[in-house]
């Protein structure tokens, strides 16, 4: 709980819900006739409307990226370490927009929302949404906010995939694309982990084929298991050893099946927390969006071809111990960008935290991220100066 709001925080923030009436055609062939997107914004849009930065969230993320909703909040938004006055994404210079994607469970239209056709929650009938669908909905959000061109689109993990998709599909609508701890597509191993998570959820007796809202239950065990397996893949072996080792909660083994090692109780706690806060149907959808992401597929599996459409500059970063989306996967993106003759900066950050590192303010990570973002800001500041001088 913040007794005082830190100086480098965006402060108390109120989310807004925007309603969209124009039908959105989805990759699966179905259409969402109308939908809501819940967003937060930080900083001020300048008169030229060229200082806007879009934040795309990862698997379990949402619109609340920075600041606090109330003085009672235990923690700030999920990327508060990077967004705020004087931080890497400096809200003194940028107008930052963060949204909850379609299919989410934090206020944007998703499985928990009422299906206007039936008057009941969509549940498992909510269409499978893909990264391109999200990007299409984000384009409409940009139109609504009067943002013709983003100064930058920034995302980590699945968020980085959305940023990459923007660069390919709407090249004229962004100047910089920031892709952190992402991959050009999932590997068989990535998909395998997602499938274990999905099986854990769908085999939970409380899942009721996704109609658990009507039964007024939640597939808590399934969601918890899904999160536990996910969480293991977000950490590195080194990081786990460092943080938990083989530490025992009571200092001795008990010869029973209660959690005794610290790592066991940590995972159970994380799973437990998540299972009360997140929606199972949304989890299924998000993992599918990850599995299906493959922008090169439309270009004979040639990522260079896919990225040759981009006209923005790129910043790509990865973390040494990330094995979920390893540095090799980021290098595939970088190699394709170089091959396609695109401007790109790439850095590989030494970090023990595995995939989770992208959310952690590691000094060198923040330094290069800030350097790059300040270059992004200098671009439009220079335009402004030139305009005022002219």
């Amino acid at each position: 709980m913040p007794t005082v709001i830190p100086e480098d925080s965006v402060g108390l923030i109120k989310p807004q819900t925007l309603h969209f009436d124009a039908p959105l055609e989805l990759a699966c062939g179905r259409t969402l006739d109308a939908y809501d997107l819940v967003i937060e914004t930080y900083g001020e849009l300048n008169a030229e409307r060229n200082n806007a930065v879009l934040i795309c969230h990862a698997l379990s993320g949402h619109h609340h990226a920075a600041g606090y909703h109330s003085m009672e909040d235990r923690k700030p938004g999920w990327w508060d370490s990077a967004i705020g006055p004087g931080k890497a994404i400096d809200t003194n210079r940028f107008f930052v927009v963060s949204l909850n994607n379609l299919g989410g469970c934090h206020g944007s239209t998703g499985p928990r929302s009422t299906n206007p056709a039936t008057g009941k929650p969509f549940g498992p009938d909510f269409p499978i949404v893909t990264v391109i669908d999200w990007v299409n909905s984000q384009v409409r959000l940009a139109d609504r906010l009067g943002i013709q061109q983003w100064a930058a689109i920034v995302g980590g993990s699945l968020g980085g995939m959305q940023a990459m998709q923007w660069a390919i599909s709407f090249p004229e609508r962004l100047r910089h694309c920031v892709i952190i701890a992402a991959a050009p597509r999932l590997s068989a191993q990535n998909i395998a982990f997602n499938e274990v998570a999905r099986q854990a959820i769908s085999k939970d007796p409380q899942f009721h084929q996704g109609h658990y809202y009507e039964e007024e239950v939640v597939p808590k065990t399934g969601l918890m298991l899904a999160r536990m397996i996910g969480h293991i893949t977000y950490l590195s072996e080194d990081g786990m050893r460092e943080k938990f080792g083989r530490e025992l909660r009571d200092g001795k083994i008990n010869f029973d099946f209660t959690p005794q090692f610290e790592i066991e109780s940590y995972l159970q706690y994380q799973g437990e927390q998540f299972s009360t806060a997140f929606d199972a149907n949304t989890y299924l959808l998000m993992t599918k969006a990850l599995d299906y992401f493959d922008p090169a597929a439309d270009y004979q599996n040639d990522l260079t071809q896919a990225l040759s459409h981009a006209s923005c500059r790129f910043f790509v970063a990865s973390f040494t111990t990330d094995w979920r989306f390893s540095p090799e996967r980021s290098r595939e993106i970088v190699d394709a960008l170089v091959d396609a003759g695109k401007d790109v900066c790439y850095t590989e950050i030494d970090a023990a935290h595995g995939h989770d590192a992208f959310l952690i303010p590691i000094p060198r990570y923040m330094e290069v991220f800030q350097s790059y973002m300040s270059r992004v800001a200098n671009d439009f500041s220079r335009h402004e100066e030139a305009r005022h001088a002219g």
Partner: protein
Amino acid sequence: MRADLEIIRDWIAPESRVIDLGCGDGELLSHLVAEKKVKGYGIEIDHDNITRCIENGVNVIEKDIDEGLASIRNNSFDTVVMTQALQTMHRPDVIVEEMLRIGKECIVTFPNFAHWRARGYLALRGKMPVSKFLSYTWYNTPNIHFFTFKDFEELCVERNIKILQRTVVDHAHRDRWWIHLWPNMLGEIAIYRITR
């Protein structure tokens, strides 16, 4: 700009694709982009240099060149540059081959270990030369291969590498007329332009 970089700049065609292996703070690339409109990329491993490249708006890719350049396609660059780094590579011959594979032309610079000062140091003191210009001691130097202009040119003959141009300068990268009288004795740094 450093004098050797000035010479290199003049050897690079406008609007070409250039990759600088071990690009430092990106000085050469930022000049080439601004003055010659090249499409330039730098490979660098030093963290501070990478940050400076980002600040300078230079395309920089963090990578250990010793791990190889396999991910870069054949002939995908017009010019591949490596200044003062060949002597720090584990296998300079492999790197030169790789440079010639990914680029149509390569520019390499390296310190000459047959310079009279180095010869004198070793001959008279019986110790590995330490100078203002090569200031490391034998146990902590990043310069793990010491070679001379003659050695390099022998390698070129052996591997069928064509030398298109060569300039020899002193430690301050100045071109002095007397160096050309006996380059392998009087020159401290060589700048070669090579191709296959």
